[in-house]
């Protein structure tokens, strides 16, 4: 399975912009917001946490439909299904590869963008913590959505409609952690709930994703 992961990461790098794509999109979102909302700190600071989280979420969403589509088009998805690697592991590894190429770089770049949006410094550690814990859930739920829509025409649009509602709990708890972290109102509660969702997603969704892949490969 590690071989599958290394292959996917090598493909992401070779295909160019593997790591940078999501961060670039996130950067653009973080820059566009002040143009839209106005530069002064008073308006930006309170909404910074939410915008950073929505930006990270959309950056994850963008690269979801490529998770299985390339393998589906060149036939390797079928061959992988008949290989000793169980489909559940395949879905989990694909989600991990997606997280490494989008979730992780976003988490590392977030503080910089936080400065753009004048996020109070007291919120920075909580921003990193919530993204580090929350983005794996985004990748795992996204991998399930990608498995659901692999092989469908116009699958990309459908994928967003199906996956965004599933992102709501993660978004609420993630952004809430940062907001509470800024005013120090006990951010640990939403953070632990966020961790709960992530662990639940990682534990259960590979099976749902594998079930769905089997149906789509029929």
């Amino acid at each position, binding site marked *: 399975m590690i071989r599958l992961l290394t292959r996917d990461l090598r493909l992401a790098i070779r295909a160019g912009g593997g790591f940078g794509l999501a961060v670039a999109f996130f950067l653009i979102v973080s820059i566009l917001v002040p143009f839209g909302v106005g530069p002064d700190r008073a308006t930006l600071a309170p909404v910074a946490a939410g915008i950073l989280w929505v930006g990270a979420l959309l950056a994850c969403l963008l690269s979801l439909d490529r998770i299985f589509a390339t393998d589906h088009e060149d036939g390797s998805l079928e061959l992988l299904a008949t290989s000793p690697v169980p489909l559940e592991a395949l879905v989990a590894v694909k989600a991990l590869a997606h997280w490494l190429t989008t979730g992780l770089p976003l988490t590392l770049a977030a503080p910089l963008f936080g400065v753009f949006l004048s996020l109070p410094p007291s919120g920075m550690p909580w921003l990193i913590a919530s993204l580090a814990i929350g983005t794996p859930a985004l990748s795992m739920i996204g991998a*399930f959505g990608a498995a*659901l*829509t692999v092989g*469908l*025409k*116009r*699958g990309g649009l*459908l994928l967003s*409609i*199906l996956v*965004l*509602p*599933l992102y*709501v*709990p993660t978004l*609420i*708890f993630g952004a*809430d952690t940062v907001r509470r972290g800024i005013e120090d109102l006990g951010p640990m509660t*939403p953070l632990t*709930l966020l961790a709960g*969702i992530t662990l639940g997603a990682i534990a259960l*969704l590979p099976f*749902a994703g594998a*079930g*769905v892949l089997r*149906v*789509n490969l*029929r």
Partner: protein
Amino acid sequence: MSFWEYANPRRFMGLSDRLMPPLFLLSGICLAVGLIWGFFFTPDDFRQGSTVKIIYLHVPSAMMAINVWIMMLVTSLVWLIRRHHVSVLAAKAAAPIGITMTLMALFTGAIWGQPMWGTFWAWDPRLTSFLILFLFYLGYVALWSAIEDPDTAADLTSILCLVGSVFALLSRYAVNFWNQGLHQGASLSLDAEENISDVFWFPLLVCITGFVLLFVALVLLRTRTEIRSRRLHAISLRERAA
């Protein structure tokens, strides 16, 4: 003859044919009686004035919005486990009804809350969770329409319904956590009857029965339509193959 016997299409068509007329009639009566009774013959609430009359639409539609999704969850499970076509087609048939009920709950809820909140939409947690439920319904129907092969569509939508239900529940509590909430307490939680006096209570009960009967009648009707279009699909497949 076990309960599952009703799952085979021929028997279901026969049974539903006999059940639909009385169901439609009964639901019509209940709705008419309940709404007229609630609208004309109940006093105004001392606090809310005449807007209290909206509960006769908001409470039943809100309850149906949730119960229809639960029905879809059960029928999807029945399809995944026992592979009964009628069950998954009933889920597909129920989705648009669920959407209508959710829209009605949202609309009446917003209007009912307007005097209290000063605006039509105040992100009240209960109403917001209906908005999220609406998104789940939308995703379910969108997935059905995106897939040609009926069996694949049935499997994928059923799994989406399962996963969606878990996340709908999560969203329900996340939304509570996110905004303390301005919604009036559970005006009809099954245990706390005393918060509405009897004069409001009986017409509400009749309305709820009306909505439930209407739902059952409609889902039978729409499931028959789904079975017929599936049969049409099977025939056209065969004609193309022959």
